[in-house]
């Protein structure tokens, strides 16, 4: 039920994000979600794509430092308080969210969010037990 996220080290330099995106585009790799976390001089680009292994191989061949992280995509009710409800459940079970971001989703009534947990397996169990839908790789392809 876990998804694979690619994290890429980028210096804060003009055109670096463009280079990554062009590279993926040229290789027909589709972006599902992305976010950039930044520090003073560098940033970490985090991506969810349809073909993570292939994308990583391509990026590394071009000299990027990249690694793979397991993340959890959660379907959050698209209504006021929807996210709060999910977070409340996680908090109650002492599950820490390292970071989270949203999917680049097509028109739909669902809101899909990506969560990075220290322990994704426990998080998935808790979420499922509380009837929160966790999206797997299969559902991803359907997106």
């Amino acid at each position: 039920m876990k998804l694979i996220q690619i994290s890429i080290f980028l210096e804060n330099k003009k055109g670096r994000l463009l280079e990554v995106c062009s590279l993926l585009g040229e290789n027909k790799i589709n972006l599902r979600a992305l976010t950039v976390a930044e520090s003073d001089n560098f940033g970490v680009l985090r991506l969810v794509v349809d073909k993570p292994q292939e994308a990583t191989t391509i990026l590394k061949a071009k000299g990027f430092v990249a690694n793979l992280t397991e993340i959890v995509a959660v379907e959050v009710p698209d209504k006021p308080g929807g996210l709060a409800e999910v977070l409340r459940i996680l908090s109650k079970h002492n599950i820490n969210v390292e970071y989270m971001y949203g999917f680049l989703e097509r028109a739909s009534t669902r809101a899909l969010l990506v969560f990075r947990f220290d322990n994704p397996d426990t998080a998935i169990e808790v979420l499922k037990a509380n009837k929160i839908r966790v999206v797997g790789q299969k559902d991803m392809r359907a997106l």
Partner: protein
Amino acid sequence: MIWNEKMECMKPEELKNIQSERLRSLVAYIHKNSPAYAAKLDAFGISPKDIKTIDDIKKLPFTVKDDLRDSYPFGLFSRQIKDISEIHVSSGTTGNPTVVGYTKDDLKLWAEVMARVLCCAGAVPGDMIQVAYGYGLFTGGLGFHYGALEMGLSVIPASSGQTKRQLKIMQDFKPRILGCTPSYALYMAEEAKSIGIKPRDASWKIGIFGAEPWSEGMRKALESTYDMIATDVYGLSEIIGPGVAQECQHKNGLHLFSDVFYPEVIDPKTGTEVKEGSKGELVITTLTKQGLPLIRYRTRDIVAIKYEKCKCGRTSPRISKISGRTDDMIIVRGINVFPSQIEHVLLGIEGTQPHYQLVVDRKVGDLDELEVLVEVEEKIFSDEIKKLRGLEEKIKKEIESILGVLVKVRLVEPRTIERSEGKAKRVIDKRVL
């Protein structure tokens, strides 16, 4: 005023006789008292009786920094440690630091040559000096201190740092002489302006600046910022600390006290002497030291030397300002930094051969800045920013604790550090020295 007119203005032939006599005694003394040196001389096939005049110095082997490091701490000393009065230490590269020791007589020599330095810069007995070189294991502070006491100055042992207090001392006590690194002097000027003190109103009329290389451009900046004459002092702890050479008021080369520190300027590749006035590596023999006398010590500093008499009356040879190094050492805020020290730290953290680069810069009116660029390898990369920042912080702390100088650390993408023939360029010095 010339502190030791007899020695500093001696006729060349007379000086040569003294140097010859001192070299003969030195080689005999070292051979007798330092087993490590004796072995080195024996291995080189040289016996003390082969040394008759100063020109025979060319028969002797060179001494390099590694000889000192390999015999850490006291192996190269010619005296037992109980006869050593004072010990100074400079930071090591990857392994051992360099340790130097002074007997009571060596301290007298240090005071003597530093008194010569101070007089050469224009000090007269009764002047007050603010010594803003670091006191402690670094030789700068205490060297100036001993010389100032010897020649009858009032000494303010301010040591380095605490800039506001330095400025208050200057305003209230009105010392005429300032000793510190040239970049610290410019830094103090900026601080002074920020608290409403005009640097040109400062009491300092003579600056004795050293412990890092600096240029004529920097002299102009110092002399126009302050109402002072800015002079250059040269020295290194292995020889004595500050007190090897000093500019007089004509500012036309640094007078090297060759009756006690015999200079040669050589081609660093062949080891043979270069023509007078040509650039080469400065090599020094300590003719009269007892604790840690050194024969033909390779300073790695590049200078040119000239022997003509100076307008000030001194006959001592004069060396040009240091124009470079024959190794990759850089001096940042008076501290010697070798790239290998940084490599050692990174190796410990990453566990693999690191790719890194040191960038040194000096903005106008500011202190030197050392930035360490480190290429991010997969091994140390994390998707979490806080871990990457933690890594930056860890590298910074470890480097700072080894070097004793503040650094900035910046993580960069792989292959961003320029490599030539597979070898990375380790140091980029952007300072206008």
